[in-house]
């Protein structure tokens, strides 16, 4: 086992992990859903009778046949949504009258296995009278048609900062504007969504690949009308989440309802095509930006307008783009920043957090605008950034958009990135190529970002405990729920370090709501920052508890008992010594638990990409990608490196490959799964160099910030800026992500940016 870098890897990488679909429960039924093939329309005549005749089918229901079926619970977590946004816009678990997104479930079939359930699905008949579908925020904002009769499609408006006075724009030496599309992305975890609901006596045990088991427990209890202690949620091995597995989805509501109604185990194992059609999407913003600077390149004002596509129902995603608005300031000292949001309902599956969750959109918009400004002022883009970074001594820093950044050294990260890349050498190579007609154009792109990790106020805490046993081992529990991040390795090591004992003696228990009454989960890159700090805290409490016990046992004052390397001893003369095992044997179980609250943290970094473009074909080849990230104190370099690498690859996905496209009818082009929606695969991964700087977060004694989303936030703008730098189109807005060959070819043949147009003053 020594050769496995992470404790969980032997299990996960040799195929002996235990996922929800691996859990065999006798008599379990498989659910399969009958799904709408149209985006928007009025449903009628659902007939499940023929399905019930299919051998092996146990039941089939439309919404009308399940009158007690509860609606999908809305989520008002973390200031991200409002009662007003959700009022009157119920999300039924099965369509009652109106289909609002393609793939929305109109009936459910339970079978003895998934094959039989799908055979049943094929026999269900229904009709949909189509309505026009709106799939862009601009179209939907016209309120023609409305998704909910009598209610606007605009579900929420928000803003941060103060409106910028016209005189600022008028009097600035340079003003640049851009329009950016943050395309809809699919989170695409290796394992799609899963739920297995098993009624046992008066309780229901729910197994699910889920990021927030305690929230799922509360939501299921509420929709069943039960007390929460009758629900147990267990998260077994989970194959990735990326933000997409934290809700009680429509299918979960149906499965839990039917398991209780029938008194039988029921499961739903989402398959890939279902997932592509009806799993939550990320991003989905149309942005307009305006940036002003003086002649020396000092930023004066920044304005960001976000039109967000939040999908068909105002779930958590309706307020998620507020993350973009709050983070609009970025790493710069811009004195005036105003960001506004309009969240618009469209005929697509709901938008939801996807790794980065609002911060990539903020970073990409700002960093593209920074390159526009550098070109306008004829300043090196690196220099423009250096002139505007918030300096290390300015922290904590209050931004005009209402964030209080905890700590940072933005110039330090950029310097390391440029040094790692050898920026000057690549600029020289770029100059050489511009003189060589045979050479492919080369571009260098920089992206400096600051993001937020941990969660929002009210959700910055975690619960946990530590318990020493008579055999000298320690069990720690916490409310986090991993989906592949390596908690089993990192957290026991952290606790062992605090206690001064061998890692092997610490065992972690997570993801089971019967193990501890409360917990939050794993999201917002919070596990190390918040749960890690909580575990450090309870480990320290365990030490104090052990000293207190030993003092009582030996008739000493607590101050007279020392703890070192898992052993308590009488400080003055070593007259009494006991290790944890002896102490527990002598004094009984030793257990501490607490709730611990962390501060919001603001990880940051600098990414630099070098690309080569074939202008005839429009292909982009990434020659180098350097990612310098700062997530404060690193608990495990291997795990953090894995996070940085994986998120950088997902960032490349947004920049170059991924994006949902839709037909005229509003149905996404996904008939061939991952042949239609292209993820970067091993063959597409360029040379990536990962480095880090360390600026501890003052928000906890541990000093860790979130490490999980860096590349999704930092990488896309580096790549897009590099392609823009290579092609120098007069209108960089031609380069909208994903930068597919057709997009790049069109930008390559468009008019070029004229060198040195000079400042507007010069022509006056």
């Amino acid at each position, binding site marked *: 086992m020594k050769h496995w870098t992470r404790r969980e890897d032997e299990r996960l990488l040799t195929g002996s992990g235990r996922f929800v679909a691996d859990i065999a429960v006798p008599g379990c039924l498989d659910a399969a859903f009958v799904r709408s093939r149209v985006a928007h329309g009025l449903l009628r005549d659902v007939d499940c009778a023929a399905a019930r005749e299919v051998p092996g089918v146990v039941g089939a229901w439309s919404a009308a046949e399940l009158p007690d079926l509860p609606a999908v619970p809305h989520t008002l977590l973390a200031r991200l949504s409002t009662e007003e946004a959700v009022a009157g816009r119920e999300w039924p678990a099965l369509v009652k009258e109106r289909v609002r997104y393609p793939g929305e479930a109109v009936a459910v079939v339970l079978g003895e296995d998934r094959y039989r359930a*799908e055979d049943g699905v094929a026999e269900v008949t229904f009709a949909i009278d189509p309505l026009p579908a709106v799939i862009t925020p601009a179209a939907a904002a016209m309120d023609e048609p409305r998704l909910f009769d009598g209610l606007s499609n605009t579900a929420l408006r928000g803003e941060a900062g103060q409106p910028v006075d016209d005189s600022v724009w008028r009097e600035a030496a340079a003003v640049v504007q851009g329009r950016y599309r943050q395309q809809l992305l699919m989170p695409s975890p290796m394992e799609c969504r899963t739920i297995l609901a098993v009624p046992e006596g008066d309780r229901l045990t729910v197994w699910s690949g889920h990021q927030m088991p305690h929230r799922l427990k509360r939501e299921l209890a509420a929709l069943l009308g039960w007390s929460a202690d009758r629900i147990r949620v267990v998260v077994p091995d989970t194959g990735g989440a990326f933000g997409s597995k934290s809700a009680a989805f429509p299918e979960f509501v149906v499965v839990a309802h039917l398991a209780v109604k029938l008194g039988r185990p029921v499961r739903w194992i989402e398959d890939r*095509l279902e997932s592509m059609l009806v799993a939550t999407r990320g991003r989905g913003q149309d942005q307009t930006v305006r940036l002003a600077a003086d002649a020396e390149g000092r930023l004066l004002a920044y304005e960001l307008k976000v039109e967000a596509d939040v999908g068909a129902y105002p779930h958590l995603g309706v307020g998620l783009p507020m993350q973009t608005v709050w983070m609009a300031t970025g790493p710069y000292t811009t004195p005036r920043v105003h960001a506004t949001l309009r969240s618009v309902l469209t005929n697509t599956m709901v938008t939801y957090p996807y790794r980065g969750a609002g911060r990539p959109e903020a970073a990409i918009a700002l960093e593209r605008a920074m390159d526009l400004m550098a070109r306008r002022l004829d300043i090196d883009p690196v220099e423009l950034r250096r002139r505007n970074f918030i300096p290390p001594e300015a922290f904590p820093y209050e931004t005009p958009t209402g964030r209080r950044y905890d700590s940072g050294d933005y110039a330090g990260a950029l310097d390391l990135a440029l040094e790692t890349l050898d920026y000057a050498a690549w600029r020289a190579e770029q100059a050489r190529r511009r003189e060589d007609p045979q050479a492919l154009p080369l571009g260098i792109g920089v992206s400096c970002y600051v993001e937020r990790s941990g969660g929002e106020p009210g959700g910055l805490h975690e619960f946990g405990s530590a318990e020493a046993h008579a055999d000298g081992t320690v069990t720690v529990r916490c409310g986090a729920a991993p989906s592949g991040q390596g908690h089993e390795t990192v957290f026991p090591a952290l606790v062992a370090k605090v206690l001064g004992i061998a890692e092997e003696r610490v065992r972690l228990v997570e993801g089971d709501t019967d193990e501890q009454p409360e917990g939050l989960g794993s999201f917002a890159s919070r596990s190390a920052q918040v749960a890690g700090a909580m575990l450090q805290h309870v480990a320290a409490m365990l030490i104090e508890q052990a000293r207190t016990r030993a003092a009582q046992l030996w008739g000493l004052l607590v101050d007279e008992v020392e703890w070192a390397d898992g052993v308590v001893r009488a400080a003055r003369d070593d007259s009494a010594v006991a290790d944890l095992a002896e102490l527990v044997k002598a004094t009984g179980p030793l257990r501490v638990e607490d709730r611990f609250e962390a501060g919001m943290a603001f990880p940051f970094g600098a990414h630099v990409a070098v690309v080569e473009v074939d202008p005839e074909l429009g292909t982009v080849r990434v020659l180098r990608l350097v990612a310098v990230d700062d997530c404060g104190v690193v608990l495990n370099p291997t795990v953090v490196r894995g996070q940085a690498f994986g998120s950088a690859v997902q960032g490349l996905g947004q920049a170059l490959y991924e994006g949902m496209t839709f037909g005229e009818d509003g149905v996404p082009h996904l008939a061939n799964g991952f042949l239609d929606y292209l993820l970067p695969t091993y063959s597409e991964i360029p040379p990536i160099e990962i480095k880090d700087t360390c600026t501890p977060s003052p928000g906890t004694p541990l000093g860790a910030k979130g490490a999980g989303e860096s590349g999704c936030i930092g990488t896309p703008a580096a790549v897009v800026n590099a392609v823009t730098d290579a092609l120098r189109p007069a209108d960089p807005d031609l380069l909208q992500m994903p930068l597919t060959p057709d997009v790049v070819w069109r930008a390559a043949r468009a008019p070029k940016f004229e060198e040195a147009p000079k400042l507007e003053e010069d022509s006056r």
Partner: protein
Amino acid sequence: MKPAAFDYVLPSTIAEAVEALGEGNRRTQVLAGGQSLLLEMHLARIRPDLVVDINRLAGLDRIDVNGNEARVGALVRHRTFESADAVPGPLGRLLALAVVNIAHPPIRSRGTMAGSFAWAHPASEWCAIGLALDATVEVTSREGKRELAVRDYFLGPYRTERRADELITAVRLPLLGDEYGVGFIEHRRTHFCFAQVAVAAAVSVRDGVVADARIGLVNSADRPLRARAAERSLIGTELPPPGSGHPRGDHPFVRAGQIAAHEDAAPVAEPYGDVAYKRQALAVLVARTLTDADADRRSRAARKGEDR
């Protein structure tokens, strides 16, 4: 993603197989490598009553070279062609250049060349090569054997002259003489996906004049295509001395690319590849592939000179 119920047979002789395929009015499908069929069945877009698995049939896993043709049995897997020596001469080299573009190694270890001709995907590399080289498809049914010329074989996307009761037993590819140079270039968004477009080319030149040109176009219409107009523009044309980099200006290869893209091709728009872009990519690829083929021819001739 589960197939609808179907029957399955695993015959041990060709006679049994065609007997099963000819049974009454059942919808039948042949299973060879299964790399397209199984996906379509999972998606329930193909719902056969009967699947006839031919993997136990003897003698279909061989490549036989008879005279001027390579006869590729119906169970020869794609990966066989990863070696340029699997088939003699420039043809072996062309197939080796093309095969690495067919999906991933696991798919190439199961999928078959004959299966590609049965499935007739517009983006099939093999089908475009078969067209360019005037290949022949051998089929057998209860009524006997037929030979189908590939030039008239493709009727549309996934539609061919083969009847559902006919089993492809082999594809016959004419060998290319040593005077040919070959090239194959594929353009796609990621390694995993189908070609946006791809081009296969074989060129022979005598005394500086193009003697023969064969150009196959992948995913350039609703079916595999041969760029006959582009070929005609080249045959009999004198080639300028080779330059460095890609051909430009009024080079015959560039002209052939334009003709292939605008006269031969009838591209079908797809997400991230509208008709204008596909024509552009085709024009570029045809010119580059011809250049590769010509360079291959010249290096081959130079090596031959050295051998003497």
